[in-house]
């Protein structure tokens, strides 16, 4: 079994991940091999079972909304690939 090329490209586009021709070919085989191994879960009867999102039974955790010191803009922007003044600089979203 092999994932179709269009399926691989569709997934990559959903997460905006660029792939080389070689990677498209490789992933279409590897992903389907891995997915085949997941078929085993079909054997398990999960009727009426709740899904588990994490392992400790914490509900919503609230705190008071109190102001506290934040970071200096220089610290926040120190790793920015591109900046202009105190802003992250990005390319035009709408042409």
């Amino acid at each position, binding site marked *: 079994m092999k994932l179709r090329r269009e399926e691989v490209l569709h*997934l990559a586009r*959903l*997460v905006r991940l660029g792939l080389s021709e070689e990677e498209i070919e490789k992933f279409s085989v590897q992903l389907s091999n891995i997915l085949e191994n*997941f078929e085993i879960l079909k054997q*398990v009867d999960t009727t009426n*079972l709740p899904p*588990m999102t994490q392992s400790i039974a914490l509900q919503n955790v609230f705190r008071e909304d109190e102001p506290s010191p934040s970071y200096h803009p220089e610290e926040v922007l120190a*790793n920015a690939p591109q900046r202009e003044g105190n802003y992250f600089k990005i390319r035009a979203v709408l042409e």
Partner: protein
Amino acid sequence: MDELYRLTIHQACQLLRQGSLSSAELTSACFKRIEQVDNKIHACVTICPDIALEQAREADRLIRSGENLDPLTGIPALIKDNISTKGIKTTCSSKMLQNFVPPYDATVIRHLKARNVVILGKTNMDEFAMGSSTENSAFFPTRNPWDLSRVPGGSSGGSAAAIAADEAVYALGSDTGGSIRQPAGFCNVVGLKPTYGRVSRFGLVAFASSLDQIGPITKNVTDCALVLNAIAGSDPNDSTTAPYPTPDYTRALIPEIKNLRLGVPREYFVEGMQQEVRTALEIAIRKLEELGAKVDTDVSLPHTRYALAVYYIIAPSEASANLARYDGVKYGYSYQETDNMWEAMEKTKQNGFGPEVKRRIMLGTYALSAGYYDAYYLKAQKVRTLIKNEFDQVFQKYDALITPTSPTVPFKLGERIDDPLQMYLSDVCTLPVNIAGLPAISIPAGFAHSLPVGMQIIGKPFGEETILRIAFTYEQATEWHKRKPEI
């Protein structure tokens, strides 16, 4: 003493307090050791001698004045490179974060700094903690100090190999599916994954948020308890931390396991398990029996066989969401040779991530995408409930479970790297523990083919004291942890 780098935390702490050793001397000894052996092991990605020696001198000043005396004060540590360290590069062994310098410390680092520990540097790992051999580092693979042609395990392979080779007194790792325990087992050191919620993950670069935990990698069980004391506790910055008080874990270090009920689930002695590993484990289990534990080998956790599939759906799904932030805008590698926003984003990820990270992002995206969500992600979450319920039931009868840490001894570099499924199988004994959020420790339990074998002790939620006690009792009665690789 010539071999200062061999000291454990509790030994070094005693010498520091007696005044017969300074933190600066100990720190220098560790750096000398790193210089001697790390060109063979490749455990470190960053070392910071200037900062470390400054921290050591400050610790020495405090120790002389008798202030702030914590057992960790002045003791040098290495930190896995996915744990944020303010002012020190935190790369996740990825091209994506190759030059990333965090503006803040992870909560665990804050806890260590409050105790005036010395941070020697950062250790190598599988990129973004995805892998079981440290071969997925974008920089270089780490080698097992016991056999340089073999892997140290992963993803915390740098931390485990460094401690086995005495490059630091202890290290921190992170564990999403076995990433502390499996390398600890492969390198003959102690590694603990605490209960989900026991240790804050604030500042840990997120991989799979419902599974990730930070924990210690140490030379023995006493040191493990000392480090856990420092890093455990609730944190306003991590709302998944448990609001329970933190006990003094060193109080659990009692060499006494009489009448403790230990279960040995048969599903962990899997097909494909090496015979010599099985034998080593059987001998270790007999030892626990001799020490007074009530061992029951007729225990079954039948849903264990679904854990691998559950894990490799849930972890990549969470990863695909967590890693969406690496878009080249706020930090990290950024592709610049285009004016097109989408192309920039796609090329940033294409060039910044390695093959395993891309594979998991794709896998997770598949499991979460329209038409497949119910069949994969939701199904996996429901089976996760079953696995957790099964552990809960078994823990009504037993105080802890004993299993191998890994079904095999460390494998050769290159042996599994082209076969993702084979690689995933090396975590088969450790990942059910993350799925259920339980604490588990791996301790040295023998050798097979002259390579280390780890024993995993799994506890009830927040049952760290029980598993530390069992581990301590076994360690006191055996010599495995004292064996050192020849490097």
